[in-house]
C-alpha cells in the first residue's frame, strides 16, 4: 500500500468502487457467474421443461441485460437498470414462468454471494481509511440491489459497511461513467468535489478519468485484472462452468489462495483442477454404482485417498468406507499370475532402460540362476547383462519356456497370501478399486489373488485415466472406468498421456513412502506389506511431489464450497483436466524448467533406475535436427522439451 498515507493525508472522504476493487469473484470473468447459474439450473426440474432455453442460458442472460438497457434507454433516456428489470426482460423475451425466473434470480444472487470475496488490497485500504476516521462511502455502476451489496461487504469483512452510504447506478439511474453519480453522492452527502475526496476504483474511465475531471483525487485499483469477456459456446456440458472456475487460478486476485513456490503453484493451477474433478467423480461413482468401499491403491492412490477424505462428507459419501491399500505391480506378480499371456509377460522384460534377465525372472518370482539352460537356448548367456529392448524377446521366450513353474509358484504364494487381498476386499458388495490407471494390470493381479474367482466382479476399477492397452483386461471381464479418458476428448487425452502426461501425473501423485516390495507375516501372524527404503534420489523426487501435492490439496480445499451448491454428479466433468493438458502440451518455460529435471522409473519394483523427463540438449547440439530428434524421442515429456529447446 505504498503511498496510501500521502494519498489520504488531506482527504476528508474516501469512496470505493465495489466490484473488482473491494470484492473479487472466484471466476475467470464476472459473466461466468451465468455459466454456473446454468449448471445449477440443470440440477432442477425446470430443466425438464425448459431445456432448450437453459442450454443457452448464459447468452440469454447477457442478452436480457442488454435488452433491458435498450428498453430503459427508449423509455427514459438512460441505460441504468436493476436486477429485477433484467429478469423481467428475460421473462418477457422467452415467455418464462415466474417460478423459473425467481429460481434463476435467487440462484444468481446465491452464487454471487458465494463467489465474491474481499480483495486484500481493497480491504487494507478500507480499514486504513476507517481507522483514520475518514468519511467513507461506496459508488458502483451495478444492477444489484444496494442493500444486498452492503450486506455482502459486511459479510466479506468490511466492518461497518452496512452503516455507510452506497450509491448504485441501477437505483439512481445515473452512473460514475457519466460523472453524475459522483455529483449525486456529493449533493446527498455534502461531500466536496475536490481533492479532499479520494475515490478508489478499477475502471480507468469511470473511476479515474471521470473523477479526476470532477476534481477528485483518485487511485486506480491495479489489483483487479478483470477482462469481462464471455466464453464461446461450450463443446461439452459444464465445460464453460469448469473453465470459469479453473480459469480463475490464472487471474491475479487468485494469488491470495495460491501457495508460495513454483512447484506448489503448478500443483494448484494445473494438477489441482484435475484431481478435484477426479475426487468428485469418485464420489459420484460411489453413489451411482452403490459402492460400499473404495480401495485406494498404493502409491498413486495416496493423494486421492486424502482428497476423498476431505470431500467425503460434503459429497454425501459418509457411508462409503475408504481404505489405503499397500500393493504394487511387483507384489501383484507374485500372487496374481493365474493365467499365462505371453504378450503381458513380454512387458515385464521391456522398458526404456534395458533390463537384465535376472531382474525379469525375479519379477515373476524366479531365480534366473536356476534357468540358465533355457536362457542360453535363447541367446542369453550373462544373466546380469542388461538386455536391449530389441533383444528382450529372448528373455520373454525363456520365461515362456518356464511358464508352468511361474504359475505353480504363484499358486503356492497365492494360497499363502490371499487373505491379505481378501481382507482388503472386505464384505462390501461392490468395491471401487482406485488407482492412477492406465491399463488395469494391478486390478487384474489383485482380482487373480482372491480366493473366489467371482469376486473379480465385485471390483470396479476407477482410474484417473485409461489407455487403449486396457482392452486386454476389459476382454477378461474386468470392469474399469477412466475419468480423464471417458469424455469426448479421449484421443487428445491419451495422446497427452503418451507425450509425458503419464509421467507427470505419476510424479504428482506419488506417495512419500517407498514402493511395496513384498508381503510378510508379522509376529502376530498377520500379513503386512514390506516397503522399499527409498534411495536419496527417490526421497528428493517424493519431496518435490509433496510440494506439488500441497498446491493440489490447497486447490481442493479452496473449492469445497462448490459442493454447497452443486452435486458431485454435476461437477464431475472431464474438463477439469484442461489445465493439465495445457501443461503437458504447452508448458511455459518456467514450468518446463521446474519439472524437466524430474526423473521417472518404469522398471518393475525398482525406483532407483530413473530417466529424466526431458533429455537436456545444450550447446551446438540444440541446432542439429538429428540431435534434436533423438533427444525429443528420448524425452518422456515432449512439450517440456519443446519449451526448453525451442526449434530454430
Amino acid at each position, binding site marked *: 500500500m505504498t503511498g496510501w498515507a500521502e494519498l489520504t493525508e488531506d482527504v476528508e472522504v474516501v469512496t470505493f468502487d465495489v466490484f473488482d476493487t473491494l470484492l473479487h469473484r472466484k471466476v475467470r470473468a464476472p459473466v461466468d457467474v451465468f455459466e454456473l447459474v446454468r449448471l445449477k439450473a440443470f440440477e432442477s426440474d425446470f430443466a425438464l421443461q425448459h431445456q432448450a432455453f437453459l442450454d443457452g442460458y448464459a447468452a440469454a442472460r447477457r442478452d436480457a441485460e442488454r435488452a433491458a438497457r435498450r428498453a430503459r434507454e427508449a423509455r427514459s433516456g438512460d441505460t441504468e437498470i436493476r436486477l429485477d428489470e433484467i429478469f423481467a426482460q428475460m421473462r418477457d423475451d422467452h415467455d418464462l414462468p415466474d417460478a423459473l425466473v425467481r429460481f434463476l434470480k435467487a440462484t444468481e444472487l446465491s452464487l454471487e454471494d458465494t463467489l465474491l470475496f474481499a480483495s486484500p488490497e481493497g480491504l487494507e485500504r478500507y480499514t486504513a481509511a476507517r481507522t483514520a476516521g475518514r468519511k467513507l462511502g461506496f459508488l458502483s455502476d451495478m444492477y444489484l440491489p444496494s442493500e444486498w451489496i452492503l450486506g455482502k461487504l459486511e459479510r466479506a469483512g468490511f466492518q461497518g459497511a452496512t452503516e455507510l452510504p452506497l450509491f448504485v447506478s441501477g437505483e439512481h439511474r445515473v452512473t460514475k461513467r457519466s460523472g453524475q453519480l459522483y455529483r449525486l453522492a456529493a449533493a446527498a452527502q455534502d461531500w466536496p468535489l475536490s481533492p479532499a475526496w479520494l475515490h478508489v476504483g478499477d475502471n480507468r474511465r469511470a473511476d479515474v478519468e471521470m473523477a479526476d475531471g470532477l476534481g477528485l483525487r483518485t487511485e486506480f485499483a491495479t489489483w483487479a485484472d478483470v477482462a469481462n469477456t464471455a466464453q464461446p459456446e461450450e463443446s461439452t456440458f459444464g465445460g464453460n462452468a469448469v473453465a470459469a472456475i479453473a480459469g480463475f487460478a490464472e487471474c491475479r486476485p487468485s494469488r491470495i489462495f495460491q501457495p508460495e513456490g513454483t512447484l506448489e503453484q503448478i500443483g494448484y493451477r494445473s494438477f489441482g483442477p484435475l484431481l478435484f474433478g477426479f475426487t468428485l467423480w469418485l464420489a459420484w461413482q460411489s453413489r451411482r454404482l452403490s459402492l460400499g468401499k473404495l480401495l485406494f491403491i498404493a502409491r498413486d492412490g495416496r493423494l486421492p485417498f486424502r482428497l476423498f477424505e476431505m470431500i467425503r462428507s460434503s459429497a454425501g459419501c459418509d457411508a462409503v468406507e475408504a481404505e489405503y491399500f499397500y500393493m504394487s505391480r511387483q507384489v501383484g506378480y507374485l500372487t496374481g499370475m*493365474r493365467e499365462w*499371456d*505371453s504378450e503381458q509377460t513380454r512387458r515385464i522384460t521391456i522398458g526404456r532402460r534395458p533390463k537384465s534377465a535376472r531382474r525379469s525372472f525375479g519379477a515373476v518370482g524366479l531365480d534366473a540362476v536356476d534357468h540358465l539352460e533355457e536362457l542360453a537356448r535363447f541367446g542369453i548367456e550373462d544373466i546380469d547383462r542388461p538386455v536391449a529392448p530389441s533383444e528382450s524377446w529372448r528373455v520373454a521366450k525363456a520365461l515362456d*519356456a518356464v511358464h508352468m513353474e511361474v504359475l*505353480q509358484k504363484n499358486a503356492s504364494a497365492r494360497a499363502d497370501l490371499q487373505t491379505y487381498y481378501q481382507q482388503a476386499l472386505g464384505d462390501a458388495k461392490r468395491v471401487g478399486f482406485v488407482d492412477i490407471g492406465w491399463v488395469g494390470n494391478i486390478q487384474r493381479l489383485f482380482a487373480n489373488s482372491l480366493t473366489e*474367482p467371482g469376486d473379480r466382479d465385485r471390483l470396479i476399477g476407477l482410474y484417473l485415466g485409461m489407455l487403449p492397452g486396457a482392452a486386454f483386461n476389459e476382454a477378461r*471381464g474386468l470392469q474399469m472406468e477412466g475419468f480423464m479418458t471417458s469424455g469426448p476428448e479421449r484421443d487428445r487425452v491419451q495422446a497427452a498421456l503418451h507425450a509425458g502426461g503419464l509421467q507427470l501425473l505419476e510424479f504428482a501423485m506419488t506417495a512419500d513412502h517407498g514402493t511395496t516390495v513384498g508381503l510378510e507375516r508379522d509376529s502376530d501372524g498377520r500379513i503386512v506389506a514390506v516397503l522399499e527404503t527409498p534411495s536419496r534420489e527417490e526421497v528428493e523426487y517424493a519431496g518435490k511431489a509433496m510440494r506439488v501435492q500441497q498446491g493440489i490439496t490447497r486447490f481442493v480445499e479452496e473449492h469445497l464450497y462448490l459442493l454447497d451448491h452443486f452435486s458431485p454428479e454435476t461437477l464431475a466433468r472431464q474438463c477439469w483436466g484442461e489445465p493439465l493438458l495445457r501443461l503437458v502440451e504447452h508448458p511455459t518455460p518456467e514450468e518446463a524448467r521446474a519439472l524437466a529435471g524430474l526423473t521417472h522409473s518404469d522398471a518393475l519394483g525398482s525406483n532407483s533406475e530413473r530417466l529424466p523427463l526431458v533429455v537436456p540438449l545444450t550447446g551446438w547440439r540444440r541446432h542439429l535436427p538429428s540431435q534434436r530428434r533423438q533427444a525429443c524421442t528420448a524425452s518422456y515429456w515432449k512439450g517440456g522439451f519443446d519449451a526448453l529447446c525451442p526449434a530454430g
Partner: protein
Amino acid sequence: MTDPGPARIGIVLPDAATPVLVRRALESIASQSFRDWHLVIVETANASGSLAEALPDPTDPRITLLPSEENEVAAAAINRGLAALETELAIIHAERDSWAPDFLHVMARTFDRMNAALPGLKGVVSGVASVEESVTGNHVRIDSVRDWRPPGLRDDLRNGVFDIRRSIAANPFPAIAFLFDRQAAVDVGLYDTTLPVLAEWDFHQRFCLENDVWVHTERLAFHRCATDRTDPSESAAFRALLTNRWIRREGATGLGTLQVLQALAAQGTPESSAGGMDSDVALPSQKKSRGPVGDALSRFNRLRKRWV
C-alpha cells in the same frame, strides 16, 4: 465311514500313449488347487502297459486306468472314459495339454455362478495359450507360447456367452479348455465315433447348439503341439464331411438357403466382403482390379524394387 459320493469333476485322459506326456498331464491335474476330481485314463494300444509307471500313486482311488481296446478310435476312447464317470461335470485332458494350477477351481466356480444365472448354461470354456514344443524321447522342450486362436478367426474369445456362430468356421476351442455338464454331453450323443477326424469340433458344435456355454477368457489352459508339426491336411480333407452332414440334416430347406447364400456371395458387394458376422470370420481378401495401366505400373514397380 460314509461314501463321499462321486467327485464333482470327471477328467478323461484319452489316447494315453507317451509316458513323459502322461506324467506331465498328471502333474497338471495333481497340481490343481481344486481337489474334488476323478480321473479316467484311457490307454491306447500303443501304450503297451508302460503307463502305469507314469502314475505317481497307482493306488490313488481318484484315478481309474482303462485298458486299451483293439481298433478303438480316439472319439470312442473319450466316450468310454466319459461313460466310466459319475461326476456332474466333465472335461477331456489330452495327454499333451495342461492347465494352470487354478484352472478347475476357476472354471467350476464360474460354472456355478453362471449356471445359477442362466440355467440353460451347461459349459464353461477358458482362454487358451498355444504351446509349441519338441518332444525327444523323455525330454520335452518348450519353444514358444502364444495366444491360441481357431483357424479362420481373427479375434479372441470375449468374456460372456459363447456365440454359436464362432463354431461354424472351425473348432472354436480345444477340449482342454472346455468344462461341461456330463449329462448334457450324454444328451447330445457324446463324441461321434463315425467321424475319422474333427469329432471334437463336431461335439462342440452339437453341444453349443443345444446348450449355452460361458466364456471365461483367462488363459488358464495350454493346448500343446509339436513345433515340427505339419499342416493338418487330414482335417481339410474331411472338412466337407461335416458340411455335407449339416446340409443333409436340413434337407431341401438347407439346399435352398445354400443357393441363396452362394448367389449373394457371387455378387461380391463390398458390404458382404466386410464380414457379416461382426468381421469375426476372416474372409479371403479380394484383389482390386487395377486395369491395364495399373497392372503395367505394378509390374514396373516390382521390377524396380527387385533391381534396387
